[in-house]
């Protein structure tokens, strides 16, 4: 295994970490309309991710930065090619971060309602668009001999990619629902478990369709294994949810995300962005990667820093391990 292969795996790991962690953040954001019955419940939901969402989002920045360093051409083609969807994602992430932080800073109802609406939409839209983006990456897009994306925005909105978007949206919502069941106490927890069943079934239907399509499109033996794991984990997550095993349910929905991302990356390898115009124009781990020296330095960084990051991020979850209910939300809204 050469270093650029190692980095292909590491980039996959970073995206997986991002979707696992911000996946439930996005899901919780969507639940503010889907699950919460009143504004107090919305606050319970938002506070389950309050201390951690920012750290979770850094997985995206790290995935971006690491792709820039390890695969400059992948970074360049992807972000200049998927320009407008990425713009929308960035706008959402900007508004979303401000919304979490500023919502409580004024007591006026209008102010708070507006930010709540913002949290819902800016969680829903990126959850959908990341699926569209990765659907397109896996499927291949119009890339010319100079590694430039030459398609239009409409090419990106093809049925396969849109289905991918629905899968990430529902899967993240499911992930957020079981997370909510795990992190809350009281009535909202019960309702989260009931909702998880519904969302989970929809997710399963869409995911099976999308993953099968992917498998037929560009799969092999390994991706088939990943697909089976993803689907089995999703079913098991649903069963655990029905049995009231919230920890298991959350862990298993996490496994679904890990396996689904793994499957997409397995179908890609050794490409990183296949060209639909000519296979010779595809970006691969070899032609898109950085020099051996840079990859070596980056590997040292990743080997040392990633475990440390996971350790202290994990510690944060332990510090805030208590479930949250309506009784934990202070009545005086302005801080």
């Amino acid at each position: 295994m050469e270093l650029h292969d190692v980095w292909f795996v590491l980039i996959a790991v970073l995206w997986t970490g991002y979707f696992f962690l911000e996946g439930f953040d996005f899901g919780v954001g969507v639940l503010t309309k889907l699950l919460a019955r009143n504004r107090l419940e919305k606050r319970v939901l938002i506070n389950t991710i309050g201390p951690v969402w920012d750290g979770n989002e850094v997985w995206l920045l790290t995935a971006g930065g690491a792709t820039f360093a390890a695969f400059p051409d992948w970074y360049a083609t992807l972000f200049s090619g998927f320009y407008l969807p990425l713009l929308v994602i960035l706008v959402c992430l900007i508004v979303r971060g401000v919304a979490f932080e500023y919502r409580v800073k004024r007591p006026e109802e209008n102010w708070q309602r507006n930010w709540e609406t913002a949290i819902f939409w800016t969680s829903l839209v990126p959850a959908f668009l990341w699926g569209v983006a990765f659907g397109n990456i896996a499927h291949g897009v119009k890339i010319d001999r100079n590694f430039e994306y030459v398609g239009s925005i409409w090419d990106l909105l093809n049925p396969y990619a849109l289905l991918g978007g629905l899968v990430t949206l529902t899967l993240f919502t499911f992930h957020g629902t079981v997370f909510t069941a795990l992190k809350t106490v009281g009535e909202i927890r019960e309702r989260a478990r009931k909702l998880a069943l519904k969302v989970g079934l929809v997710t399963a239907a869409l995911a099976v369709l999308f993953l099968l399509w992917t498998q037929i499109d560009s799969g092999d033996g390994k991706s088939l294994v990943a697909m089976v794991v993803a689907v089995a984990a999703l079913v098991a997550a649903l069963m655990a949810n029905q049995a009231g095993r919230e920890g298991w349910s959350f862990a298993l929905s996490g496994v679904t995300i890990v396996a689904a991302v793994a499957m997409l990356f397995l179908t890609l390898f050794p490409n990183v962005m296949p060209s639909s115009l000519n296979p010779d124009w595809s970006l691969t781990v070899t032609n898109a990667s950085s020099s051996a020296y840079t990859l070596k330095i980056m590997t040292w960084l990743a080997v040392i820093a990633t475990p440390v990051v996971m350790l202290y991020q994990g510690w944060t979850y332990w510090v805030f391990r208590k479930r949250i209910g309506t009784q934990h939300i202070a009545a005086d809204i302005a801080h």
Partner: protein
Amino acid sequence: MDLALAPETLARWQFGITTVYHFLFVPITISLAALTAGLQTAWVRTEKEKYLKATKFWGKLFLINIAMGVVTGIVQEFQFGMNWSDYSRFVGDVFGAPLAFEALIAFFFESTFIGLWIFGWDKLPKKIHLACIWMVSIGTILSAYFILAANSWMQHPVGYRINGAKGRAELTDFWLVLTQNTALAQAFHTLSASFLTGGAFMVGIAAFHLFRKRHITVMKTSLRLGLVTVVIAGMLTAISGDTLGKVMFKQQPMKMAAAEALWDGQNSAPFSIFAYGDVSKGHNTVELSVPGLLSFLADDTFDSYVPGINDTNKAEQQKYGPGDYRPIIPVTFWAFRWMIGFGMASFAIGLAGLWLTRKKFMLPQHLRVGEDEVPHLVLFRNKALSPKLGRLYWLVAIWTLGFPLIANSWGWIFTEMGRQPWVVYGVLQTRHAVSPGVSQTEVLISMITFTTLYAILAVVEVKLLAKYIKAGPPELTEADLNPPTKIGGEARDADKPMAFSY
């Protein structure tokens, strides 16, 4: 470069707008993290309530500010790929590494520990909670270092070779990229300017309250801390600016010639404090200049030779081939002056303030005041400023809050525009760096989107800051004074509302 709609023009405007905007928040974040941490340390050590109140007050403003810094930073991570894909392809092997280091080492640090700090008041023992804000502070400084090392490589590329076959620059010495003198000087200058900014922010807001005779105890402490910070950081900013200037005279003579609009090289080159007329045609209507100062700034002697714009342009044409290697002279000329002018004005106001509000033991009996009284502004040994002059000082002190922000912005505009037409000095020109596959319409859409969004958020942010500034430090609660002794909070508090919730 002259064409208004050259492919790179919009992309450059967008980069300029998003980056200058982002950098309004960065220096305040860097300095307020450390200053808040310092205040919280004082609280933990002395248990004086004024320090806890100050921590809560400045911490709140810090959080309002860092939220904007964080979200505008996301754009920075991705816009190289979006608008500057050829740049990314060409430099990614070198430039990407410090960015990845920044994300993996600094961003995780900052954002994880900021969450712990915001929500940890009733979940963490006092000292661990304090450690969290220090972690945030370390994170902000590390982050600054890595990104400045990356920028320094654009100013003065080192530790790389050109791979002709792949058509890109490749890293050969990462340590050199991190430790070259440009990076050290830039980090020193930017970090000291950041503390000047945060110090002035503190001075301005404390002066506002003291002027209105509100929250005197907390604000006197804050004023003092702010003033000391402004004076020390102001001095360091000047020293590091001088160092960086000397480095730039060697590495980018064009930038420094343009800073002075010095058209032809000369010995004992003067430095004009103010120039009137069209500097782009040679500034012959100079009002006020200090002879020999530019030579001194260049290499510590008043009579040395400083190359001019024309000589440097010719030298670069010989080196890099035909072309125009001049930046936009009036911009560099004025940006350089506004940077120094506003930065040093803030320093001077701080210095004056430190003297006027000096400690009790330096004052005669009748001018000393108690802990909860607004200090007299004492200019000479025995005499306080007249009410009119005193009022004027407080107003100026309030206004100084904005000066370093202006200076910082012009500092970046100067150093980035002064490097033009290069994006990586001597290696890659800006016009070869843009994304060939991105249409002008797309860039226009994103520029309008970001600009509009940023403008709206600016209004929201400033209003929110104003609200919390006016409100002053919060009253302390029982919970504030009795932090938990166990990680995760005390068991008896299991059903209590959280000390802070979104």
